[in-house]
């Protein structure tokens, strides 16, 4: 029997604040262990939490871009559990009254080039603010562990979806969409590899048509899209096997994904789940958010990807697919918009960005590489092509050099003699030589084998070391062949 897969996601995102949520320590990533640490970060007595207003701004922004209600009053609670990475043995979070509730986002559920994009609405249950914990570092070949409290107190928002996903692709599309809009809104850099975006995945299966949900397992702390997809596939099979073949009895539990061995392991079941002893934090007054505060955050938001995509389609006549790709990535869109401002050939610009830049970035697996291409140089390169000063083949070489070596297009063309040869007299001479040297091809052409012209064209371009202006060669060759 075919079972329906049901997935819900809890996505944790570290907010892009300068300082931590409740103290003035730096919240930056990559410092030496325990460099960004004060007495509060190590749980000493006597420190009181003072809420970082910037973190509230960003949480409101996260709520706005996910169409949530921003609650006029929310409350911070204490969640109690003992683990050495949690300095006070409690985490400050919003359990009972979160800052944002009842939102949604639309995700693309097919993204092939031909069909128009279909969307699906994913409901968001709530967004709450909380502090991150530190990290335990286990020394290799030793039974010792060290604690690094740099991350302790870094502000997070946790975005909790409803169980609206029916396959891994939808879950992945949702995380990618969240990443896109949260980056746009400046909430976070959402770098999964640095842990500034992580997901807990809730998975169950049920028979098609069932109203109620099956037994749920939760896989904690996933920080790669590929691993999430694999974990979902694995869990689906495990659940179905349990129900169909009786391989095991399913229990509600928290599991850990082991990407190396491609399987999940049970961490704890509901029966021995911790009681977190939640209660309102008496040291932090309730957080009251006025309409003015919300309006000021809303006014500061940039054009969001869905709006941008629609504009690209109407204003520039870009395809659904191209618009979605560029608008979906803030860095690409910024480059596109800036280049359009310098050179009015949007379709051409989009082709360079999608065809060349994205391909190189994908090859390097480096999302940050967008920064290597700047708008003035890209505009200049496209201008060189459209005025036939270089041919397209050479332009691709120039682009690669811009990407790899930070090359300036003009300098690079000059240095490597890439400018097109468009002098009629010279090209005419070259074509005459080619025609004389290849009488067989000329004969073929004249007897109707039109492909022979392409061969002669190639020979001419080769003689010109690839720098011939293709339009000129084509015109003169056709003249010469009569």
């Amino acid at each position, binding site marked *: 029997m075919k079972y329906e897969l049901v997935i819900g996601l809890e996505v944790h995102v570290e907010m892009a604040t300068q300082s931590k949520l409740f103290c003035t320590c730096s919240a930056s990533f990559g410092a030496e262990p325990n460099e960004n640490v004060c007495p509060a970060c190590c749980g000493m007595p006597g420190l*009181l939490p003072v809420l970082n207003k910037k973190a509230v701004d960003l949480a409101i922004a996260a709520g706005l871009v996910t169409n949530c209600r921003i609650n006029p009053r929310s409350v911070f609670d204490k969640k109690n559990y003992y683990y050495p990475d949690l300095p006070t043995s409690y985490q400050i979070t919003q359990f009972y009254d979160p800052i944002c509730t009842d939102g949604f986002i639309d995700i693309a559920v097919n993204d092939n080039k031909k069909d128009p994009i279909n969307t699906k609405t994913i409901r968001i249950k709530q967004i709450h603010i909380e502090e991150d914990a530190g990290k335990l570092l286990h020394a290799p070949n030793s039974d010792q562990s060290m604690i690094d409290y740099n991350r302790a107190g870094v502000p997070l928002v946790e975005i909790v979806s409803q169980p609206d996903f029916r396959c891994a692709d939808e879950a992945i599309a949702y995380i990618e969409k969240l990443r896109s809009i949260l980056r746009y809104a400046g909430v976070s850099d959402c770098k999964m590899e640095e842990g500034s975006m992580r997901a807990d995945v809730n998975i169950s299966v049920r028979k098609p048509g069932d109203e109620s949900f099956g037994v749920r397992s939760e896989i904690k702390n996933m920080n790669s899209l590929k691993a999430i997809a694999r974990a979902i596939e694995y869990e689906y099979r495990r659940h179905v096997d349990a129900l169909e073949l009786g391989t095991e009895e399913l229990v509600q539990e928290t599991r850990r994904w082991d990407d190396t061995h491609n399987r999940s392991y049970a961490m704890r079941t509901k029966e021995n789940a911790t009681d977190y002893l939640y209660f309102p934090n*008496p*040291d932090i007054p309730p957080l009251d958010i006025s309409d003015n505060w919300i309006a000021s955050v809303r006014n500061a938001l940039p054009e969001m990807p869905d709006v941008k995509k629609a504009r690209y389609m109407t204003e520039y006549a870009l395809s659904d697919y191209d618009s979605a790709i560029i608008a979906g990535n803030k860095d690409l869109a910024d480059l596109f918009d800036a280049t359009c401002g310098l050179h009015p050939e949007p379709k051409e610009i989009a082709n360079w960005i999608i065809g060349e830049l994205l391909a190189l970035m994908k090859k390097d697996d480096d999302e940050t590489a967008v920064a290597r291409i700047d708008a003035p140089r890209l505009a200049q390169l496209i201008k060189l092509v459209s005025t036939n000063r270089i041919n397209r083949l050479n332009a691709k070489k120039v682009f690669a050099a811009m990407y790899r070596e930070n090359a300036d297009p003009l300098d690079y063309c000059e240095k490597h003699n890439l400018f097109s040869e468009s002098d009629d007299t010279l090209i005419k001479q070259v074509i005459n030589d080619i025609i004389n040297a290849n009488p067989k091809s000329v004969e073929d052409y004249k007897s109707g084998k039109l492909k022979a012209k392409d061969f002669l064209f190639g020979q001419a371009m080769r003689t010109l070391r690839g720098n011939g202006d293709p339009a000129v060669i084509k015109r003169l060759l056709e003249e010469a062949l009569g």
Partner: protein
Amino acid sequence: MHTLDALTLANQIRRRDLTAFEVAKHTLSRIDADTNNCFLYTTPETALVAAKRIDARLEQGDCPSPLAGVPIAIDDTILVRGDRCTAGSRMLDNFISPFNATVIDKILAAGLIPVGRTNTDEFGVCGSGDTCYHGITLNPLDSSNLAGAAAAAISSRLVPLALCADTLGAQRKFASQTGTIFLKPTYGKVSRFGLVPYISSAEQIGAAGATIGDTAALLNIIAGYDPKDGTGIPNSDLIPPEPSQDLRHLRIGIATDYWTTLGRTGTATLTETRERLTALGATLQDCPLPQQQTDILGMASMALQIIAAAEGCNNFSRYDGIKFGYRPQTYATLDDISINSRSESFGREVKKTILFGSFVLAQQQYEAYYLQALKIRRLIQQQLAQALQTYDCLLIPASTGQPYHKTNPEANARQCLTDTHYTAPATLAGYPAVAAPSPAVTQERCGIQFIAAPNNEQILFDIVNLSTTDSLIP
């Protein structure tokens, strides 16, 4: 000079009849000779350096505050940079604070001279005076019984002033039993930054002294909004220096139900107090709380115990033997470090707090205990607010007056529950209250307590200033 009140002493130092240095030296030598175990340790080096510095400033006519040069005791739950601060617990026996509490910065800026750390109930729990890891403190007025160390230090004239935190209300109780004054300010008026936390939603650092004038002057120095404390009240008004001449403008409500529970002690203390206040022109009226209100107030002690346990249990959870504090001798696993450090270093009452707090916060009990306690707290606040619309302040006993015997910890812990009945209303509501001694009309000193509306410390100051008779301490 040690029998002078703080303001008089400061005057003499300012006039250069005395130097801060000689006062500090004298104070330190009297503390060394103390037999009641009021102080855990003294800080002679820093005290004498600070005294010299103040003397130099005063010589230049530069007087930072009306209490400049006066020695002061600091409760062991308040953090001082570079000082050991144990909060009365073996857990923090080796803990050196890397920063100053805000109140410490303020008293240092005002030129007060901290001379040492007074004993405390472990983390402020219970309030019986015998839960400290460092031993008990005896009542100077009756050495067979216990007292809070700050109150005892003032009562035995070791120091004229002390800073300590009022948690469940023990500071008011022991003030009434040692013939001293304790002023608990409005919640949020004094920064809790640097106070080792126990009941975060209710506790306040207050002023202990021999006279209300001294405590008012100290409150003026330590009060004020602190951006490091998110629960602070912005623009806290301070007490004007000029006291009223009489009490003709005041209406005082007598919470009769509280007094009748104390039998003969209550009746006699109330009669004596009523006569004194009436003579000063105050209007006194019985404020019999309606039956329903009595029930609610009757639950105040229980509600406070529940809230204190919940918050205490949570606040003590940071002590896990890993980052600082007591590290056990032996442990095999990570859990062992926490379990052994807590088992070996926490005292009985702290362990009870953790157990009770975990119980009331557990999902199954949360509504029945913790949420009910919060509800009672709201009702108490409403009822006090309502009564204080009619009256400028309420007069209730500060305690039962039952002494705490030095060899009976179990009975003392039970007695604390009863005494908390009198201190819990102001603590839960966050209202200012002052405890003052009553003459020993019977064997028991229940003391008197006035509760005012938030930020109305001025009224408490006027009443006690005009009504207290000659000092009860030798």
